[in-house]
């Protein structure tokens, strides 16, 4: 025979039900938070990889399309280290400048005698800094720093540079 009062007997199953509902809610919350964290991490990593890959692939592809004898040069204009891609269209010389300015990657296409004005180019994608180095053997080194602070370097062997031997 139970010594508990009817009110107490009634409240224990009710409390257990509420406990279960609470546990259910807690687990739902934890799963949602965990999912959010995992998703954010994946999205951030993916964005970082994408940002740097876009910039580097863009530069490498531009260099490949303009890879001719003495067409790819690293020059300094108005204090900006720029990658200059020279080409001739209908006999007239043109140049494409690629550079970093105001936190973005810029491209400017102009005729050769025209002066370089960084703000007149086309703004492409965010990038913190951009550095170029070209060795005499024809190896272009491009280093970028994305807005996330991640630095990446890509090397591009210029095909049109005569090294005195077949490649």
């Amino acid at each position, binding site marked *: 025979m139970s010594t508990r009062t009817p009110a107490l007997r009634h409240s224990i199953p009710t409390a257990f039900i509420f406990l279960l509902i609470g*546990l*259910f809610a807690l687990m739902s919350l934890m799963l949602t938070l965990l999912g959010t964290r995992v998703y954010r991490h994946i999205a951030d990593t*993916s964005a970082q*990889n994408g940002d740097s890959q876009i910039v580097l692939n863009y530069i490498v592809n531009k260099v490949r399309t303009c890879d001719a004898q003495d067409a790819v040069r690293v020059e300094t204009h108005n204090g900006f280290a720029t990658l200059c891609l020279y080409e001739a269209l209908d006999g007239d010389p043109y140049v494409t400048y690629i550079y970093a300015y105001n936190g973005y990657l810029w491209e400017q296409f102009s005729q050769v005698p025209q002066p370089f004005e960084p703000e007149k180019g086309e703004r492409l994608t965010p990038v913190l800094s951009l550095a170029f180095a070209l060795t005499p*053997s024809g190896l272009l080194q491009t280093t970028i720093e994305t807005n996330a602070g991640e630095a990446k370097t890509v*090397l591009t062997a*210029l095909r049109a540079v005569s090294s005195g*031997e*077949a490649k």
Partner: protein
Amino acid sequence: MKHFKGNTLLIELMLVLLFFALSQAIILQVFASAQQTNRTVSIRNAALMQAQNTAEFLAVATTDAETALLSLGYTADSDALFIADHLSEGYQLTAHISRFTQPSGVLTTVTITASQEGHPLFTLPAVRYQGVRLP
């Protein structure tokens, strides 16, 4: 009758909770798998960029492949095998050099293999032909 209703509700809740626990276990596995895939992709990207850089460097190197690999930070494991450890980034690059010599020149193939914890990720061959200068 009231007692019976209370038990039914309790059993229903426990079934729901059991179902949720099973779902949670499956979803957690999916999250863990997504995290692992994300890590593998990051490592593969970093390794691919490094392997590409090695191939591009070898294409214009004025020295032989062994010297070029050493200058890139590879260490010699044997005469033809060079290793670059990037363990902090989660991968390792190995470069195997093979040569095919003909009277007209030498075809050097450097096979760059990236691996993550012993499992190969990809292989990238870098081929270079050096012709013999005839008098």
